[in-house]
């Protein structure tokens, strides 16, 4: 007799616990305000990443195509996995002295681990995070970028 009672009690307990769970799912099913999914490729126009989002390392240039990189190579030294290569050049400045300038700041996005050390340690704040995150390409070599734009020059601070 007891076991039969237990058997039915178990069934009712099962149904009630099922009901408790279904109530929650039902609640969300009928409350459209709680929808959290985003329609990603469609919402590209309105999708805005956070300002600090680590998409890629970029070198900001101003409207005169000037950047702040002196070619010191500190970022290259601090990068844990060799994602940065600095190629410098020597040119004569106005007084005729030879000066080191950046020729190419090569950045391998494919190797970068987004540790932020290059940006943090750059003495002239020449690097920053870019917010682009759609990096899929067909060829790995496309992920190697030259950060200083062609023809760009070092911004001379007014002394």
């Amino acid at each position: 007799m007891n076991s039969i009672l237990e058997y039915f009690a178990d069934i009712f307990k099962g149904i009630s616990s099922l009901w408790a769970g279904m109530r929650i799912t039902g609640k969300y099913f009928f409350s459209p305000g709680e929808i959290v999914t985003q329609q990603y490729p469609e919402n590209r126009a309105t999708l805005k990443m956070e300002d600090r989002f680590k998409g890629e390392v970029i070198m900001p240039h101003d409207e005169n195509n000037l950047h702040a990189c002196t070619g010191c190579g500190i970022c290259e030294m601090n990068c844990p996995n060799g994602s940065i290569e600095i190629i410098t050049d020597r040119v004569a400045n106005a007084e005729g002295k030879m000066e080191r300038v950046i020729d190419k700041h090569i950045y391998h996005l494919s190797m970068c681990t987004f540790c932020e050390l290059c940006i943090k340690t750059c003495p002239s704040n020449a690097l920053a995070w870019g917010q682009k995150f759609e990096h899929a390409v067909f060829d790995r070599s496309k992920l190697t970028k030259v950060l200083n734009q062609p023809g760009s020059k070092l911004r001379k601070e007014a002394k």
Partner: protein
Amino acid sequence: MSEEIIKDVIIGENEDYIINMGPQHPSTHGVLRFEVCLKGETVKYLIPHIGYIHRGIEKMCEANTYPQIIHLTDRMDYLSAHMNNEAVCLLVEDALQVEVPERVKYIRTILDELNRIASHQLWWCAFGMDLGALTSFFYGLRDREHILDIFEESFGSRLLHSFVMPGGLMHDVHPNFQKRIKEFITYFRKKLPEYDQLLTGNVIFQNRVKGIGHMSKETAIGYGVTGPSGRGSDYSCDIRKIAPYGAYDKVQFNEILETGCDTWARYKVRMAEMWESLSILEQLVDNIPEGDYTAKMKPIIKLPAGEYFQRVETARGELAVYAVSDGNKSPLRMRFRTPNFSNLFVMNEITAGHKIADLIAISGSLDLVIPDIDR
């Protein structure tokens, strides 16, 4: 052992059956292989095979400077990335006798707890899913998204932050930081009871987890099982209590202990820890002192020659870092004692005699993260 197995199977002395669970099994959450010996449906013994994603992090540390090591530790237990980062930072700060600002301590502790909640949420989703409750998976991830958004706003990345560095933080937290955490606390206090209604109270779920995977306190201590898995066996092993770091000595919280010793007890410990973390967050979030976000550090960090040791409580147990320095800017030897490694090897002991379906529940209750085992 393996010769015996071959004899058993080939000669057919008994009816044991060896199957490989993994390396790509959905319920191992990573590349891990269990060699399971079955008699009928009952597990006789189980041998874990590890090393599928061994990246040599300890060896890599020897070639990297201390600030560079931080970002490697992210990749061990990626769900407690912040705690791993903090372990190395604390070690370096301890070795150099640097006093970090109070603000840094508070923020680090807040991040620890946020990370712990996010990790437990993910565990809850995955545990439900392993046992066939797919709804819990979506609901848990939905709430975890709120924490990841806070992370993204302040550090720019959602999972692997590398936000701390020896001496402090990379940069100050976002101005919205406190506001968003407070919003999250109110939000999650409403949602957490739903977890109980959905999964904890479910009879099918309870029948599947109660009374299986019995791990006595002696076993837990013997194998070095720490974290929520150890505390489910009444083994008091919370580093936050034993050796407080950060701002843990300034907050009131309980160490959650359960005496059930089974899968159900470990489940309850983690659910209670989420409540406890919420209360820690509440105590800290309004009291973040003003000040610098980093202490003054030399540009090149060199530890004095010697041996250093530091441990922290991650979401899965005790992470210990041991470094030997010869006075250079990178360590001579770096060793990580990761919690999941010990937690994994208790599997053989606690699954023996259970059905193969229970194996999934037991491994789920240990909350294994495989990259942390392989390093």
